[in-house]
Every structure is written in C-alpha cells, then in structure tokens.
C-alpha cells in the first residue's frame, strides 16, 4: 500500500506555523507577567497557558516526525522536553527561560519554513538545540536502546489474562492471530478457573494458555505482540537458547514537493455553502418545471422564481467570498512580539492592546496587509513612543501603549493603529517640505495638510536614522501598498498625545469600487481609490513644451496630461480638453491627469484576471464584465502614472530652456 504523504504537507505547514504563532503569543504573555510580578508570578503562572504552548510543540513534533521532517522533529522534541518540565512544575519560567523559549520558537518557525520551501535550515539550530538541552534540569541521557535482543528458534509462552482484560478492549483472539502471523503455534488451554454456571460473569476471561511457537526470531517480536496487555495478564516468555542480534534503524525518506497555497475553512462555512446550493437546485427544478408547460397566466410565478434565484445567487456569492475570509488576528498576533523586540532594542517600554482581531478580511488582503502594519507599528515604537524618562517627565506612564483596532464600516474594514507618543513633529515636517520645495516658503498651511506630507517619498523626519525604521522604506510605500489593495490610509496626530493611522480596506480583492469612464466607444474602469478629483479644464490651462508631454496646471501644480485614446489607440469623441473631463489620478505620491470623454458613474465590478490569456498589458490590470455583457478593461493607475512621469523626467533632463511654468512643473514632478 502506498499513500502519498505529501498531500498532507500544506495542512501540516499551515497548522505548524499557526502553532508557532500561538506559542509565541502565549510566551510573550508569560514573559509579561513574569517581568511584572517577578518570582511570585512565575510560580502562579496560568497552567493552561503552558499546556497550550506544550500542546503546540507536541503537535509539531508528532506531525513533523510522521511527515518525514526529522530536523523539525528533533528540534521540536528538545523544545517540548523543556516545556514539559515547566508544565509538570519541575521548572519555573523566569525571564531567561522565556527568552530562550522565544528564540527557540523563532528557530522552530524558520525550520518549518525551511522544510516548506526546501531551503537551508537556520544557522542557529545546533546552538539553540544544545542550549535547550542544557537548560533541562535533569538532562536526560538518550534512552538506552535495545541492549541485546535474545533470539531463539522455539519459544514457550504462558499467558493468563486477568479479570480486567476485556475491559481495556483487548481480546485473546487478537493475540493468537498476531502469533500465527509470526509462525505456527501449538496451544493448550487451561480452563481450571471456570466457575460454576451461576457465578459465570461473561465480562471476565477465565481461561489461560500455554503456547509453543516454532520460529527463529528475536524475543522483541513476541514482546511486541503482548506489549498492549503486559499489565493485564500473567505472562512469561521463555526460550531454551538465546543469542544476541543486531538492531535495525529505520530511515525516513525525505519527500520534497512545494506545498500549494491552500486555505482552511471552518466546516460551518462549507455547510452553509451546501445549504445554499441545495436551495439553488430546488429553485432550478421549480423553474424548469414551470417553463416546460408555461402559460402566460403563470408569469407571476416565473417572476417570483427568478427573484428567488437572484436571492440565492447573491447568497452564494457572499458565502463563496466568505470562504476566503480570515480573521485579522492572523496578522495582529505577530505584532506584539515585534513591538516588544523593537522596544527592547531602543530601551523603550511598550504595551500593545488589540481589539477587533476577529474582523474578517479576504485571505489575499490579509497576506498583503501584514507588511504595512509591521511598518506602522515599528514606526510608532521608534518615532512615536518616547523614552521612559521623557514620558515620566511629561506625566505619562513610563510604558507607551500602541492600540490596534479593527472594525467594519460602510462595507469596508477599518484598521486603526494608535499610539500615545509624542505625535508628529509638525515644525520639522514643514521645514523639510520647504527644503524640498513642496510648499512655498511663506505659505500658511493647515495642520492636517502638514501631517499628509509624511506619506511623500523620502520623507523621514527621524533625527537619527535608526536600525529599526527609517531605512529607506518610507510611509509612501505603506500608502502605495494599501492603495494597491484598493484601500487608503490617513494620519492624524495631536502634539504630545499621540498619532493615529487609519487604514481603510475593501473586504475582498475580487470586487472593486470603480468609476466607469468612456473614451469613444470604449468603457474603462478606474478603481475609485486612485481618483483624487475630477475637473473640467480650459485649453489655456494646457501647455506643451517642445516634444514633451502635455501638462496642465491644477491649482498651482503641474500635472502631465495623459490622453487615454492615444494610449489605447481608440477614437475619442472629444479632442479639445474643454470637450471632455480630466480625472486626476494619484499613485506613488505622483499625480497625472487622465483625459476622457465622460464619466458614466460609480459601480462595483468583479475582477477577471487577464493573465492566463493575454500577456501583461501596460496600463491595464484586469477586465470585468458589465451588466450588458460587454467587457471593460480595468486601468492600472500605478503603471499609467509611472509611464507619464518617466516621460516627464526624460524631458526635464533633456531641456532646460522650457516655458517657465513647465520648468517649475518638472521640478515638482519627482
């Protein structure tokens, strides 16, 4: 029989990584308690917390052994042994142990990843393994393996089950079958213990046996047969002669195959789907019967049936999208650890409060929101939260608090990252913006507008570039990543009291809110998240430096004008700018103006990927099918903006003798 174990690998990896995450968050909580309460807290630790960590290590060990990941299994075993000591009260978890365990958990995660991606094992496995073993109070010597097993050609066995024998679900018959598998047997039953009929209890085994088995084999084979019943019977196994034999080592073959992306779905959700499909089938049967002998009198019935069909389809759509939904806790759970590590590095104290971690989001979004969130939390610890002394001086508690909160709002999911730190340093931001020529030297500017500047590229105001954040990746990347997901991010801050980032995300990537635009006979969809504003311009607002792109002036800012008809080679109805509309699109903190014939309105569209059928198209991200059945292309704002701006940059570099206003515009473009 061959069973391909690789089919279970993706589940194993997924739940192992979940297990690692649980171990981490529980360990962090233990560490927090120990750090606060000292020895007393170490003694009164919640047993269930330790149990939970132990179970996770134990499951990973069992699974990795079964699925052939021996390195993971060995390491998990060392970790499990130490945890078992703590769990059974033989060891107190102090700050050092907690720290060791946390490092071991990191290593275990890396090992699981290495097994998953068939990559190299982390470099610190051996040292950590040794550390774990040293940490065990009574370092267990490797179990003495089968000293020297005896063999013989004939064995005699005396086997007398006790009163309890049947009550463990065992059966002498099973033992005999196993013995016959080994070799021919001769038995003699001892019925002397059988009571008189009136006292006979059918739940008790009254018989005993003397068994002779003729087969040259090691005693181990017989011990195996009786292994389960050793305590439940009288047993002697004897052989006339005995010699030593060798032991066999089992090698586990490593199976390598990359795990496919998979998703675990609660059974309740699947049951819900099955219910809806059942309803659909009923409706469909009802409709087919109806149309088979249809008369006009039954039109109302048909109408009702179609309405029912529509309702079920909508339910099915919701339910199917719901399958891809995962709770935000998956991402949130990693952040307290991050905040702790960063804070320790910077000598700060930070506590993290999490709420709304059950809010669900599409799996694809969950996977891609993690980096932006890590960035924001890191930023808060690094730039937001002050050093403990500074905080005490200002009458704040020595430890800062970062709050993560998620909730549903108007069909979107909102994630807030709040800190009670110093807030944004507006003077420095304004100084920096002036230095970079983003605002005029004497212009008065609204405080909330100032805060927005931190999303501009290269806008790090940290006084020292630290090891933690400010390593080139700025908040502009965060905003851009979030926009790619069809969402947005805003910041607000009050000096001395803290900063608050509000991220808004769509529930799913499969459906976007779009604006339909018409150019000639074509309809394009532009995701709403990228649209800054829409306006009508006059011909005099447009300038075109020789050979360069057209540029329009929008409230003292110069923006390259992109004519969609020229990019996609279609015939537009409007050629003069005042005949159509201009949509200002913002991506990567750069703006472009898209010239279109008209806006048709806002609508939700279902994304259909073009990739398997067409090669990647510049300026197009996907397609959708409109209500009337026609196909509309969905514009890729990021790529359109990059196109327009690279053209503008080339132009600015090539020519200094531009129209004065165009020269100014080229300067603000990048």
């Amino acid at each position, binding site marked *: 029989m061959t069973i391909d174990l690789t089919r279970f690998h993706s589940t194993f990896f997924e739940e192992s990584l979940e297990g690692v995450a649980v171990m981490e968050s529980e360990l962090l909580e233990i560490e927090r308690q120990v750090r606060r309460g000292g020895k007393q807290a170490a003694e009164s630790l919640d047993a269930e917390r330790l149990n939970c960590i132990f179970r996770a290590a134990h499951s990973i060990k069992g699974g990795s052994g*079964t699925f052939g990941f021996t390195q993971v299994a060995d390491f998990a*075993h060392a970790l499990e042994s130490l945890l078992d000591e703590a769990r059974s009260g033989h060891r107190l978890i102090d700050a050092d142990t907690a720290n060791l365990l946390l490092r071991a958990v990191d290593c275990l995660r890396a090992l699981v990843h290495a097994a998953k991606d068939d990559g190299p094992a982390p470099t610190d496995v051996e040292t950590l393994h040794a550390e774990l073993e040293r940490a065990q109070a009574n370092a267990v010597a490797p179990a003495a393996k089968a000293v020297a097993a005896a063999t013989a050609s004939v064995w005699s066995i005396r086997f007398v089950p006790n009163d309890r024998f049947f009550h463990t*679900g065992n059966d002498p018959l099973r033992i005999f079958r196993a013995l016959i598998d080994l070799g021919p047997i001769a038995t003699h039953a001892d019925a002397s213990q059988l009571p008189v009929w009136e006292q006979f209890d059918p739940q008790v085994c009254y018989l005993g046996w003397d068994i002779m088995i003729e087969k040259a084999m090691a005693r181990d084979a017989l011990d195996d047969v009786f292994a389960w019943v050793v*305590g439940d019977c009288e047993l002697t196994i004897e052989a006339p002669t005995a010699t030593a034999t060798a032991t066999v080592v089992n090698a586990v073959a490593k199976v390598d195959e990359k795990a496919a992306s998979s998703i*675990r779905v609660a059974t309740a959700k699947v049951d819900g789907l099955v219910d809806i499909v059942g309803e659909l089938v009923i409706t469909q049967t009802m409709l087919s019967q109806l149309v088979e002998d249809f008369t006009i009198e039954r039109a109302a019935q048909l109408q009702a049936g179609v309405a029912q069909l529509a309702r079920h389809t909508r339910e099915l759509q919701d339910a199917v999208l719901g399958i891809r939904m995962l709770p935000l806790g998956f991402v949130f759970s990693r952040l307290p650890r991050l905040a702790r590590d960063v804070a320790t590095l910077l000598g700060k104290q930070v506590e993290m409060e999490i709420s709304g971690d059950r809010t669900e989001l599409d799996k694809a979004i969950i996977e891609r929101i993690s980096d932006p969130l890590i960035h924001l939390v890191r930023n808060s610890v690094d730039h937001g939260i002050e050093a403990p002394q500074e905080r005490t001086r200002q009458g704040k508690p020595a430890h800062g608090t970062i709050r993560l909160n998620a909730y549903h709002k108007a069909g979107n999911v909102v994630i807030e990252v709040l800190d009670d730190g110093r807030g944004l340093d507006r003077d420095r931001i304004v100084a920096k913006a002036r230095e970079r020529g983003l605002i005029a030297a004497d212009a008065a500017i609204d405080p909330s507008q100032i805060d927005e500047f931190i999303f501009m590229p290269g806008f790090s105001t940290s006084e020292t570039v630290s090891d933690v954040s400010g390593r080139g990746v700025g908040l502009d990347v965060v905003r851009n990543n979030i926009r790619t997901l069809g969402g947005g991010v805003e910041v607000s801050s009050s000096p001395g009291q803290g900063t608050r980032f509000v991220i808004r995300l769509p529930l799913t990537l499969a459906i976007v809110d779009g604006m339909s635009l018409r150019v000639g006979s074509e309809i394009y969809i532009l995701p709403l998240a990228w649209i800054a504003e829409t306006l009508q311009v006059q011909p005099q607002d447009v300038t075109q430096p020789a050979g360069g792109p057209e540029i329009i002036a929008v409230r003292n800012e110069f923006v390259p004008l992109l004519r969609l008809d020229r990019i996609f080679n279609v015939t537009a109805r409007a050629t003069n700018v005042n005949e159509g509309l201009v949509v200002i699109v913002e991506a990567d903190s750069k703006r472009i103006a898209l010239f279109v014939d008209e806006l048709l309105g806002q609508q939700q569209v279902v994304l259909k990927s073009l990739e398997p059928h067409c090669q990647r198209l510049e300026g197009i991200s996907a397609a959708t099918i409109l209500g009337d059945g026609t196909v509309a292309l969905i514009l890729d704002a990021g790529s359109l903006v990059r196109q327009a701006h690279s053209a503008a940059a080339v132009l600015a570099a090539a020519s200094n003798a531009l129209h004065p206003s165009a020269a100014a515009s080229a300067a603000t473009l990048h």
Partner: protein
Amino acid sequence: MATIMTVDDTASMRQMISFTLGSVGYDVIQAVDGAEALKLAQDRKVDLVIADVNMPNMDGITLVKSLRALDTYKFTPILMLTTESQAGKRDQGKSAGATGWIVKPFNPEQLVNVVRKVLG
C-alpha cells in the same frame, strides 16, 4: 465495514489517518478533541477509536475514562497516539482503560497494520 473515529487537535494528523484508513475501505469520522469525540461516539456506534493524548478541552486520557464509563464502549478498542518519550502517559492511558497505543511517528502502512490487527 467498520467505523473508526480519529481524535486529534492537529488537522494534518486527522487528515492523514482518515485518508489512509478511508483508502483501505474503513468509514472514518473525525473529532478535534475529547469533548467532540465523546459527543460523536454517543450519536453513532464507533468500532475503533484512535485518540491523541494531548488535546485542548478534553485530553485523550479523560476521553478513554469517559468512553469506558459508557455501556456501549465498555469493550470497544481504543488506541492512544503517543510518542516515544511519553511512557508515563502510556501507563496512564492503560490504567484508564485504553486497549493499546501507536507510537508517533508512524507511517500509513504501520497504521493500517495495527488497525487490521485490532479489527480482525
């Protein structure tokens, strides 16, 4: 064909056991912990229980005790999944009334062999 219940909080183990035994013709039902197993066992008759030891809510040993307390499960074979290092748990399982154990890690062939032996 006999009905087997696998009780494990680890989905990959449950899937592996259930797929392996299912592929040789057994009916396999799954439970995520002792509590669910105890409930399912009372809804229908199970011919063999294969239970992990460490599980949340109700561990394997408590499950064995609880099943043995039921009239219908007095003599039903119950196997515990244990590891080499858990001799103590193995003894606890035995005295709670477990029939035997399977040592982790094990491969599908070993599993089927043990199950065939137990179910005859």
